[in-house]
């Protein structure tokens, strides 16, 4: 994290997601909620159809922060609100764009980062932040 100062922008990352990515995340994370695999199950709880796991979008975003920070063990506090679902069509692909900005740096070098995570141009995570300790 060189040149760490408020206003520093993280390198932006864009990920393309398919239902195969959702299945891989579901298997790796043990999340068997059918709203991530079955359109009828998703619609039964008011969603338009199969949606990405909120934790997949958060996991992707925090992996980007970890890359910036020099490793995942640098993140001490982090999280987000899942403000908008990310529908993933059966035969399609959707984008997930992850951007971040350093908003503060403490005396000991701990950095606060605000993240902007969007899909199809709309924010999908709200209040997405990470507190990162120096090496």
């Amino acid at each position, binding site marked *: 994290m060189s040149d760490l100062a408020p206003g520093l922008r993280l390198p932006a990352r864009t990920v393309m997601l398919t239902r195969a990515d959702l299945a891989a995340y579901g298997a790796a994370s043990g999340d068997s909620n059918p*709203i991530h695999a079955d359109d009828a199950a998703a619609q039964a709880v008011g969603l338009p159809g199969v949606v990405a796991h909120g934790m997949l979008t958060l996991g992707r975003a925090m992996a980007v922060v970890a890359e910036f920070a020099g490793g995942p063990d640098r993140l001490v506090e982090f999280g987000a609100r899942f403000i908008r679902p990310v529908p993933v069509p059966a035969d399609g692909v959707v984008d997930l764009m992850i951007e971040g900005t350093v908003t503060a740096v403490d005396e000991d070098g701990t950095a606060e980062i605000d993240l902007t995570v969007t899909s199809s141009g709309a924010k999908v995570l709200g209040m997405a932040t990470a507190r990162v300790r120096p090496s």
Partner: protein
Amino acid sequence: MFPATAPSPVTAEAIDAFNAAVGAPPGAAAPTYPFTFAVQAWQALFDADDLDIELHRLVHADQRFSIRRPLVPGDEVVAQATLTDLRPAPGADRLVVATEIRTTAGDLVGVATSTLLCSHRPSEADG
């Protein structure tokens, strides 16, 4: 506070599969990896007689982590959930679940705090 989960092992294979799924390189567990253990603690909520919560009626609204120590292969993890808030509402109840994640050696790994929306059961009258 609900019963803790049985100990669950951390393996390099599981970390690498998780990391691949979130776009992180193999090796050190990606930041949200502890959640895979925290969510196991939710089973106690599903099993509780005085609650009516089921996984397929849950939508995840918010997730925060406070991490003290990374998980590494060889760790045995236990997670214990506490329901810290429950607000009934028309359509879906709002729950806040704080899950403490520890190793069996006694180290605190961190706390995962989840806000969940639980849809009410479909009305019996809907058939």
